[in-house]
């Protein structure tokens, strides 16, 4: 609230950052060939209006509706199974990405690790972190391309792509949750002479699980949006049908599919919010 003036970023610093961003903006403006004048000029606006008019009314014929429905169900399935696969990948991986479970902190205060064992555990930690970084850095759609190459077209590569990428994201988040648990219960357990595994099961996990569920549900909301576009590279769902509709200039069908995306995204958001309020 009442922040002291001394704690504020200094004026000179703000000026430097501001000037840096201005330069970045100019450079980007010039590099991307942005031409707002022509976009919002008379001709540009007319073209936009023509395109928007073509989108209406959405194609509500039985064939278009059943195609959109099938795509929406497939997208839902990809996002759900992909998110579950991600949790299955993230749970074991996150144990590797947690320093406080591997080699330092309260669990290792009473029973010191042999230096050699400590080095091995440090190696596990580094390897786990690196693996999660690789999974997370490669975007879903690139994973989708890779899995389409490996297992062929269809929704299955979409599931794998979401699972692997999100597994990396959740593994990192789960690891952070595990490192941040309140140490007091762990100390109490340790004082009773509980083993490390028991402390993990009775001290760490009960504290971490609600956050795990909450993060997994949040990523499911992200994944339903991602699943809707993975089809662009041949990984099933609504994306594939949208790609076809745009490529063939079937604008009214495109509108139906966009409405389907809107419906399925809204549905999953609501489901996820409801589950979160009941479970967490």
């Amino acid at each position, binding site marked *: 609230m009442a922040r002291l003036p001394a704690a504020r*970023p200094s004026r000179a*610093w703000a000026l430097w*950052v501001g000037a840096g961003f201005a330069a*970045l*903006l100019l*450079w*980007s*403006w010039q*590099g*991307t*060939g*942005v*031409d707002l004048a022509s*976009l919002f000029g008379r001709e540009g606006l007319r*073209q*936009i209006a023509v*395109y928007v008019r073509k989108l209406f009314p959405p194609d509500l014929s039985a064939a278009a509706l059943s195609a959109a429905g099938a795509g929406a*169900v*497939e997208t*839902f*399935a*990809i996002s*759900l*199974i992909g998110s*579950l696969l991600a949790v299955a990948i993230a749970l074991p991986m996150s144990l590797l990405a947690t320093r406080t479970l591997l080699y330092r902190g309260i669990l290792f205060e009473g029973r010191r690790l042999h230096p050699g064992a400590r080095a091995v555990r440090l190696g596990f930690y580094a390897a786990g972190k690196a693996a999660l970084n690789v999974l997370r*850095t*490669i*975007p879903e*759609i*690139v994973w989708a*391309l*890779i899995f389409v*190459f*490996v*297992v062929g077209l*269809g*929704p*299955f590569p*979409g*599931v794998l792509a979401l699972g692997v990428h999100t597994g990396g994201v959740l593994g990192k988040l789960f690891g952070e949750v595990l490192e941040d648990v309140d140490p007091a219960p762990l100390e109490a357990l340790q004082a009773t002479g509980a083993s490390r595994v028991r402390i993990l099961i009775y001290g760490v996990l009960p504290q971490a699980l609600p956050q795990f569920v909450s993060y997994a549900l949040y990523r499911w909301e992200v994944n339903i*949006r991602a699943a*809707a*576009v993975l089809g*662009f*590279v041949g990984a*099933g769902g609504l*994306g594939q049908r*949208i*790609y076809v509709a*745009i490529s063939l200039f079937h604008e009214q069908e495109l509108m139906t599919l*966009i409405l389907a*995306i*809107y419906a399925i*995204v*809204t549905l999953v958001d609501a489901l996820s919010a409801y*589950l979160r309020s*009941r479970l967490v």
Partner: protein
Amino acid sequence: MARIPSAAPADRFPASGRRSRFPYLLTAILAASVVYSLRAAQVDPRRFFEGDVLANVARFVRGALPPELSREFLGLMLRPALETVQISVMGTAIAVLIGIPLGLLATSSLTWRGVLHERASRAGRWGLGFVPYALARAALSVFRSIPEYVWAFMFVRAVGLGPFPGVLAIGVAYGGMLGKVYSEILESMNPRPLETLHAAGASRLGVVLYGLVPQALPNVVAYTLYRWECAIRASAILGFVGAGGLGQQIELSMRMFQFNEVLTLLAVLFVLVAAVDFASARIRARLA
């Protein structure tokens, strides 16, 4: 602190003492949808033990190693890499231009509710306040619920290939997200300074400029920077539908089975994303 500890958990149980059937029902529904989804998504882990899939995995790994590091290729990729940064910066800038006005209109405490409008007439509150508010909310919702890829694809159709449609796609989709979050930030601000200014006879503009903006600015800037981090990831991929940047190159290399080039491009992408994350995190840490 003053809460009686035993009172809080008690009201979580229904008064009748009847056991809720909800958990069983929920579990059954979830299990059914998982089983159904496994079929709908054609999940088949056995595929990974089939010869052709294993051969493809081997082919991909062998093809990707070692990464393509020839001077010629790296030189060719410099331009798309910089373009990716430029698209993210320009896209975020346009998102801010869209997000600020729509976000202001979508803030109920500014348009039709609360202390600023106590003395406004009923008709004025509805016509000049609620209607623009509802329209702005609807526009923001449409902007952000259409995924940026779909926007990009449509803009490629409208303005042609290249970075410009990528900028527009990020601008529109992120504009929708920024506008919504800006309005949430503004609505969550402490109303006391506004009431004080209002009581002192300040005009509405004065109340906004001196009561609201100073409170909200750090959050607004921090969230915008966070969105910029997301935009660099998005702009790297929008090229898949022809909107410039690294994505276009990744797609080309992938389609031509040049997996060693793909690996190099992914490494470049990693460096770009890490650099933007670092810069943004530094600035946000100073602001907080």
